[in-house]
């Protein structure tokens, strides 16, 4: 979005993102108060700091697609497929005794290439063929899952070189590496979506693709770019995840699909497209992470946590609906 004056900026920030941040602080405080001994510990905060990045990156991968007027149901299986193929490369090269640095580079490159290929397929079906993103990514999601299963036969890929574990568990100057990646992703996405020409075109496409096309914008190219970018983010999330689990399986991260949508919508992204800020999504991710971790600590059954997360999605959608009604009147 284009801010033309700083007063407007502050005023707008006073609205959605600030409210969300407030909610986050409140929840954080709540959790800390209820169980300081377990929530407010260094170990727990660290654990959240390691888990939040992959969730956050998925949420952003979802957000950018929703902003462009679509939805990407294949984010988790894109990451899974990238992880499995990348994992295969990692374990095979590692077993063959290749020097560690080359293994890592080859592995990471594989993650990226596979995920970008997935993104390209999505782009093809949505932009070139013209299938609605919902159905297109429903199809690609199933396809990717199938390929995953075909490779792993239901098992998990393991045998990663030790150096690989650093991605998901290492620190740089005391800060967990995943968190650094996440911060970089957030900054990059902010600039790409909210400060670049590409981003402006993406938002306009999400709002009204006809007008945008008539204005001389190559809408197909923009959509391809969005799905490729989304795929790239899935690769990053996949790297962090498989490093953390030290293995790759097609079922890893499957819950992030729904939570990703929740986070995006909670963060102010309009499910119809055209609106959404990275900051909002990030804070929403933080909120959902706090809730999920909190529930976990309090011993709430993880299944109930799923229920609550599902309930939050419905709730958030309902609130968004009411909010959209107000926006039209305002």
């Amino acid at each position, binding site marked *: 979005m284009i801010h*033309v004056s700083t007063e407007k900026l502050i005023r707008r920030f006073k609205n959605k993102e600030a409210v969300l941040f407030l909610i986050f602080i409140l929840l954080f405080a709540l959790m800390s108060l209820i169980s300081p001994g377990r929530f407010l510990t260094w170990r727990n905060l660290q654990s959240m700091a390691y888990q939040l990045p992959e969730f956050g990156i998925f949420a952003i991968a979802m957000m950018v697609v929703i902003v462009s007027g679509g939805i990407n149901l294949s984010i988790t299986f894109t990451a899974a497929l990238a992880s499995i193929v990348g994992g295969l490369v990692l374990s095979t090269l590692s077993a063959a005794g290749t020097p560690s640095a080359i293994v890592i580079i080859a592995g990471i490159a594989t993650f990226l290439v596979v995920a970008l290929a997935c993104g390209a397929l999505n782009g093809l079906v949505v932009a070139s063929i013209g299938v609605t993103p919902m159905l297109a990514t429903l199809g690609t999601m199933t396809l990717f899952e199938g390929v995953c299963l075909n490779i792993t036969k239901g098992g998990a890929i393991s045998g990663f070189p030790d150096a690989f574990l650093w991605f998901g568990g290492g620190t740089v100057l005391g800060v967990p590496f995943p968190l650094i990646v996440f911060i970089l992703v957030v900054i990059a996405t902010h600039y790409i979506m909210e400060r670049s*020409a590409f981003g*402006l075109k993406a938002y306009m496409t999400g709002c*009204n693709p*006809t007008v945008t096309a008539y204005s001389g914008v190559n809408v197909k190219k923009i959509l391809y770019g969005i799905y490729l970018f989304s795929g790239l983010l899935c690769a990053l999330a996949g790297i962090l995840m498989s490093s953390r689990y030290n293995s790759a399986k097609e079922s890893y991260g499957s819950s992030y699909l729904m939570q990703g949508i929740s986070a995006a919508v909670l963060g102010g992204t309009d499910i119809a497209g055209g609106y959404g800020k990275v900051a909002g999504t990030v804070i929403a991710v933080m909120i959902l992470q706090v809730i999920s971790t909190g529930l976990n600590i309090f011993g709430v059954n993880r299944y109930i946590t799923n229920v609550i997360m599902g309930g939050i999605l419905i709730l958030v959608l309902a609130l968004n609906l009411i909010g959209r009604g107000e926006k039209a009147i305002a």
Partner: protein
Amino acid sequence: MCGEPKWVDYGDEESLAVAVVRRERKGMNSNTFLQISKISKTFPGVKALNNISLEVERGEIHALIGENGAGKSTLIKILSGVNQPDAGAEIYIEGKKIEVMTPLESLRRGIVVIYQDFSLFPNTSVAENIAITTDIENGTPILNWRRIRSSARAALARLGIDINIDTALGELSVAKQQLVAIARALTYDAKLLIMDEPTSALSKGEVELLFKVMRNLKESGISILFVSHKLDELFAISDRFSVLRDGKYLGTFGEDELDDDRLISLMVGRKIEYTVYPKRKCDDKVLEVRNFNKIGNFKDISFVVNRGEILGITGLVGAGRTEVLKAIYGINRQDSGHLFLEGKEITIGSAQDAVRHGIAYMPENRLREGLVLRKSMADNIAITVTDRLVDRVGLLDRGKLRDLVEEWIRKLNIKPAIADMLATKLSGGNQQRVVIAKWLALNPKILLVDEPTNGIDVGAKADIHKLLRDLAESGISIIMVSSELPEILAIADRVIVMRRGKISGEFDGATATQEEIMNKAILGVRQQAAS
């Protein structure tokens, strides 16, 4: 500038029409189905209907004639209960006064409107499309297909046409689908059928079939109010003709009381109250269209546009003007033809190509195709010129953007002067200015404009006219499609008239008259009807 209402009296012709009306209005008789009077409809800023009267007899085919914007659609909406007229309206159906016309009431009284989109279901059978309405109304628990099919067959028989009731509707041609829509109207026990532009998608033969059906309906005592701009067809089928102009009712005439000239005078007879700008003779050819053809859209279109001139393209609605414009812009690609820009042949396959060549397009439907309403003025203006606003990395330079937007707000006097204001909150005139700004920012050579002052109040219209003239003076060539003859004559240097997909006439903007243009737009109506 122009604060006066559009319906300026034309003097003699008006009083002639009034006299005719007085002769016609014998008061209600037993043969009258519908009589309305004192019908007015005011929308914010515009009086769409001004004291309309109308009388339709039983079993009559009654034509409603008027230019685009004369008020025909508004009148139909009032008759079908969708909109309410201003206070003081009188509506009588079969002698009984109707206090409030609601959609349900209108249907119950036997008024059925057949819209251009039919409201049918392509995926179900003809029989179902025709006859299931009764079941929906009654809430039948278990459907009796035999009844539905025989009911459908009966309706089709009443129309005198033969369509296989078991085919899927989507399989039928548009013409046949329309007949199905009419058949459905019969199941509603229609007494007055209102048909809005029913022949716009039909071939000559299909029109003949439709007319045969209409005559059958007439025989059985059903009245038809036929709204169309295709005057030759109207003359072939209608018993009487009512003329609307700029929201006013000019009279009802029998066949022998109207000839081409009188008809044209009635339709366009008005003083041009816009400022008429001096026309220029430009001869530096900048764009040449040669032999553009597109099946179902236009044929043999060739013309030239010179630098700094405004070329007006006019004609009746449906003549293919917008389609030609869209073809030039690359969003409705022609089947064959050549395009030359400054002497060199170019191919435009998409809007992007067009923009790259310096061609801009302002669509007719500003709200759906011209602006992204839910975004700000700034976003809308910037979207065309992002290339000029980015730094090396591709990031938008906010300073440059701010300057650009503010420059155009100033130049075009957009109000309110707030760059972040959502486009949806602007008035029609200001919205149009934002659209203009977004294209001018590109510094185009050629501006394609479709109905530039559509839905804009009178004062703002004059401003847009001045703006367009100024742009032309500065060297931009403008191709302007407009249905408003006064507007064409006010600002166009040259005028091209299109009719039924072809160019039927070309005029010098300085010397053309409304009558001449309209003549070319409808070309020899009576002779057509007779043949």
